[in-house]
């Protein structure tokens, strides 16, 4: 049995320790926002936060992350509330709010990973430039975060709006 900390709760899992986190989240724990995209850390559809760092759940065996804090999109709102003391409006993290407000997704399958990566960015750099956002989503991780619909212009708008929402919330 491996004990994982998923979105603030300790979960004992039965899956074999070499199982990638992605399959444990989706099949054993019912945490469904990390999506299967490539299984090779090439696209970012399965991204989660491990502590403060974005990792690819499809290639991360659960044995390697025992006891470490994992956050998925399901846990973003609580993470925001816990870290800032600000209430999560409508049960959403500012990045999620911004994604709805800016109507960012086309099909949306890659956007969970995009939102995870942008959360990682904004926690470290609350006022990013276009170049910062593009770099975060292209060169900062094991691979670029890919969007086949190419919703990149909307993602840029979404990231800037999220930064504004976060700044406003912290200012209050």
């Amino acid at each position, binding site marked *: 049995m491996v004990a994982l900390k998923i979105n603030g709760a300790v979960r004992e899992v039965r899956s074999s320790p070499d199982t990638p986190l992605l399959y444990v989240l989706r099949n054993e724990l019912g945490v469904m926002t990390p999506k299967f995209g490539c299984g090779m850390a090439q696209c970012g559809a399965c991204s989660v936060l491990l502590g403060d760092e974005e990792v690819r759940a499809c290639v991360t065996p659960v044995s390697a992350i025992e006891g470490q804090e994992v956050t998925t999109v399901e846990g973003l709102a609580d993470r925001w509330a816990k870290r800032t003391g600000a209430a999560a409006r409508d049960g959403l993290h500012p990045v999620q709010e911004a994604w709805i407000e800016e109507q960012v997704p086309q099909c949306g399958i890659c956007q969970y990973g995009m939102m995870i990566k942008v959360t990682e960015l904004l926690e470290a750099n609350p006022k990013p430039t276009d170049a910062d956002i593009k770099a975060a*989503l292209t060169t900062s991780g094991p*691979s670029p975060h890919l969007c086949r619909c190419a919703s990149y212009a909307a993602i840029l708008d979404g990231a800037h709006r999220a930064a504004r929402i976060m700044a406003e919330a912290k200012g209050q």
Partner: protein
Amino acid sequence: MSGADVIETVETVDIHGATLSRRAFLGAGGVLAVSLGLVPSRVLAQAPPGNSLPPAKAGSWIEIRHDGTVLIRTGKCDFGQSSIFTAYRQIVAEELGVPIEAVTTVVTGDTDTTPDGGGTFGLLRGADNLRKAAAYTREAVIDVAARRFGVARSAVTVSNGQVSGGGRTESYGSLVSGRDFQLTIPVEGELTSFFGLRVAGDPPFKPASAYTIVGQPVKNPILAPKISGEATWVGDVKLPGMLHARVIHPATLGSTLVSAGKVDAAQFPGSRVVVIGNLVAVVAPDEWEAIQAADFVAAETKWSEWKGLPTHEGLFDHLREKVDWSALPASKGKSSGDTTAASAGAAKRHEGTYFFPYMKHAPISPTVSLADVRADGSVVLHTHSQNPQYLRMSIARMLGRPEADVVVRTYPGASHFGRSNGGNAGSEDEAVLLSRELGRPVRVQWMRPDDMLWSTSSSTMMSRIRIGLDADGRIASYQSDHHGPPMQDDRPIGAILAGLPTIGAPTPDNKLGLQRVSMGISDRWVYDAVENVAEACHATYQIGQRESPLEIGLRDHSMRTPIQFQQNFPRETAISEAAALAGTDPLQFRIDHVKEERFKAILLRLRDEAGWETRPSPSPQAQSSGTAVVRGQGVSIMFRDNGYWACAAQVAVTPDTGEVRVERITTVMDLGIVVNPLQLKRQVQAGCLMGVSQALHEEMAFDEGAITSTDWSSYPILTMEEMPEVKVVITARPEVGDYGQGSESANALAAPAIAAAFFDATGKPARRLPLRPDYVKAMLTA
């Protein structure tokens, strides 16, 4: 007698060819439900199979409930366009005369709960079904109100959910309250055919000048549940007792099974191998075990060797030199004047051969399906499809069972840009066959290489363009000859491998669906000022299909702006080269050769919006060698779905490295009625960037036996850092009446604009895609 049970006299009224009947008191409830009445005189009309919405029963299309809320149903599915949740609600609300908020429910896709079928493409053309259903409904409500109020129909008005006449006003909900009205509308076609059912007749439409909801930037209601994590995607569906499967596809596109590997029971205790003909799969209750066991078994599985493909490096030569284009009849597009004489008399001539590679739809998530075949042989298939009724037909055909035995349920999934508009995208049929074999629900998730190697691909094209210029530098003659395999093969791959019935390989005389081998002009001629035009199309069989013992080969499929992209790239690139030959600015050259004012207007707008420099190409600073960056601009235009499109690209090229960067891309379009400017803008921004991806990166690689683009490193797509500045300019002309369709076109326009900008920057033509460094260096030294 109690009010709730009283059956009133059934009263029927003709409403513009639809039939309204008032059936009963219902107590507190009440509904006006629109059902389908098949037009008997139409050739194709036949009753839908069982497990479909029965004709002439309540609730097929639109339901108006006693609380005033409205439910709509469509057989189309969402693939990121948003239209069925935004534009469709707007169009229905507009025609009914209710607020957009009243349209609370959209039922989509599932074969047993939606009425019309047909492929999810041309969504706003397809909106005509619900638009007509809504118009019939409004007319019926007016009739009900006229009787209630004791006034003539002409004295009744509808606005904002309120129906007024003779000094009285009632809401839609109140008018139907306590009664069950059924409106039967005329429908033609065949539910499980490629195009599905169409609502017939000509109910009166609200004039566009009176629109208040169409044209508003309505948000997409399905985004919030997706973003919050509440939405159930196709890959998230689970059933009790479900097994996870991975399919071990053949070594090549022509390999047959020699022997299937065995699973190591000690290492993989829950796994087993299933073999059905040439279809090999591994199943296990645990997904990670299934993945590992499938890798183990795949390594032990033997396939026959096969070679029968020209390779992607040899494809251009294969199309130019090896294919016998006279074997199948050619078809003509625009044909006017005398191109032979005009070309012979031309002052200058441009001639070029252009090449468009195979591309992949390449959804971010590989295809996944979950099938549940019950002991009685009935099938429930949980999947993601652009044409669920046609998929249902394919599954029934494969199993040799009636269509009534098959239900397809649909869920959100990754966009795949047309790949399943003929029903399947891959995995659906395999899940069904494995579930039938094992008597348990089976989930088939294709891995990334399965999705790259075993899905269909966007087809290749080789085009010869000849343009003659007169002494004034105007186009005297235009001749095009497009050569390629057909656009579409909708056979499910698992059924082919298992040796089970399909709609058959594409051949010149296959009349099922779109399986006929043919090639026609998709890129409509737009330069009306040119007198002498001859467009011809030449078809061939799918590459490798007749050589493959499995009849597989490189299976083609429509992909975002299909065939028009393949034909517009050579045409527009050649027009830019001809403009250079004429010494004329390429944007002005286009204005000079179109007659349509709407084209002239968007080109003038593009000139302003794009920061266009008016001058002939190539640029005075053009260089084809060196390490210094050279810059250029290019333009392209297209007519599609009654919409006028123009695009300008500004690029930077580093000749010695072959690197091409798109710095800015501007798209201007006039689409007639813009239903939803917010969603249109997002769609066009993204479509345009997908086009940049296709222009710079995308070519499906293959060797003599198999596709070799297996993943994102061997089939790269645009990354966010490569994103240019994107500008989208929407112009509206509501008076023309057409609903603007924005999910296509933008992607296709980018490539010829980028190719023309490359020519402007370097002075060397770019007659093939993609513009990636190795090809670019070859172009620059040619």
